[in-house]
């Protein structure tokens, strides 16, 4: 855990005032995770796109462009190693992350792989409240499964 004080654009017209962050080592890189509130405090074009960690020295990681981006990227990377997942959707409510993973139908082997991956992911970020739902499409149109305000990470 490392405390930072930064402002970073989260979407057009918003910047993030972070409260704290985690640096997490993963195969393939170091990821930065921010918890905080997205607050409309400055026009998009005025918001800084990067920051420096106090103490100087080169940053060991690339700061993500958005709050969700780093979470979604790592979670998607983990899940996409599993064959059979049709869609992944994510929504962030304040500091609460919700993920929906859509699979064709009940499949214990596939489900267990998903739970193993997501529970392992949650272990790395115990401070982030996280909710996972594995949804069974059962012949329905994939696009009909679209929780409000969730955005699609995959495909």
């Amino acid at each position, binding site marked *: 855990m490392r405390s930072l004080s930064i402002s970073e654009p989260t979407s057009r017209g918003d910047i993030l005032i972070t409260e704290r962050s985690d640096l997490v080592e993963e195969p393939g890189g170091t990821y930065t995770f921010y918890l905080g509130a997205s607050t409309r405090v400055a026009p998009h074009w005025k918001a800084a796109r990067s920051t420096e960690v106090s103490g100087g020295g080169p940053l060991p990681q690339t700061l993500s462009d958005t709050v969700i981006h780093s979470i979604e990227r790592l979670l998607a990377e983990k899940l996409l190693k599993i064959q059979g997942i049709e869609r992944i959707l994510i929504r962030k409510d304040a500091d609460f992350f919700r993920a929906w993973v859509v699979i064709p139908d009940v499949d214990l082997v596939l489900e*267990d792989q998903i739970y193993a991956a997501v529970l392992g992911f*949650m272990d790395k970020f*115990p401070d982030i409240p996280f909710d996972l739902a594995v949804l069974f499409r059962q012949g329905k149109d994939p696009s009909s499964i679209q929780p409000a305000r969730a955005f699609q990470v995959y495909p």
Partner: protein
Amino acid sequence: MPNFADHILQAGHNEEFYRATDKNAYSDWAVTAVYYAALHYIDSFLATIGMADPGGHDVRDQQVRERAELRPIGYLYFRLKSRSRNARYYCTRFQLAELQRCLEGDLAAIRNHVLPLARP
């Protein structure tokens, strides 16, 4: 506030509801009864460690994920929770064989794991 015994009774009550339900017509509520039986077995354990009321699914889920006593049955609990959510919010229906597996497999494993831990 429900205590250990109350939660055990409620878990059994929900299992009875499952058995009384027409599972061909109401597989959605049948699987939800199984899930809420599992939830009360989890809560029976939490009641014995001073958490009489988790106050919400997010807190209970976190306990299931993080407590060493509950982790071994975490994936069973979350599997049931997802089935109930599919049934309630996404109009999913389940085959009788899957309902029975949920009852005799996942729920039985949760009950057998939690009861020895939770008995005050």
